[in-house]
């Protein structure tokens, strides 16, 4: 499947993956972040149960300390 990840096309071998699987596959290890799929914010507790499908628009933002 193909998805948009931060507005860039990304391909995965599977037809669908959970948010947690996507984070593992992409080796995104920094934990302070927010993720939106098709403009819907996905809370941390739902990373295992939320499925990313072909054509989804996934956006991720790292939250750095300092303000």
């Amino acid at each position, binding site marked *: 499947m193909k998805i948009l990840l931060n507005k860039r096309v990304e391909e995965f071998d599977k037809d669908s993956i959970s948010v947690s699987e996507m984070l593992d596959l992409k080796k995104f290890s920094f934990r*302070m972040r*927010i993720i*939106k799929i098709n*403009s819907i*914010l996905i*809370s941390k507790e739902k990373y295992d149960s939320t499925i990313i499908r072909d054509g989804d628009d996934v*956006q991720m*933002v*790292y*939250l*750095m*300390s*300092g*303000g």
Partner: protein
Amino acid sequence: MLNMSIAEIKNHLRKFRVGIAGAGGLGSNCAAALTRSGVGTLVISDFDVVEETNLNRQFYFTDQVGMLKTMALKENLFRIDDSVSVVTYQDKLHKSNISRIFSGCDVVVEAFDKPEMKEMLIETLQAEMPGTPLVIGSGVAGGGNNEAIRCRKIDDTLYICGDEISEVTENMLPMAPRVEIVANMQANVVIEILMQKK
């Protein structure tokens, strides 16, 4: 904003209410820019007092050390424009009071220090005030590296300002130039959103 006088811009911005979550480096400087631009009402939330170490980047003065940031900021904003309305909250923000404090705001600026607080604010506001644009700051530490600082629109309700990399650590502290650049970028996004609003 094309072909508008400063008085016309101020007259338009006067109608709006902007929430600012945190009155540190991002929040205090953002509030100053919004007041100078003419935004009518600012809702500012912070529970801290001004410390001497804040003065390298935050919009406070030596004689305000020890004052509540909300009170000191209100005083400073009135010195810029005494027609601005400033609503202040000294409560620590948590899931259950955020949407009550910021209800009625046309835009909210996230200006917290700790990433856990940023996350909590974003999750709560996007769930409880879904149509309200939120402008967050992420990546302000250190000096130099101008070209890395940017603003990114995720969608109509979420904007990110900062380099999204530079974390504040013991070896990388926040300083006035980069913090103020990001604070003013956040203010600039707010103005852009409000100028398009009727």
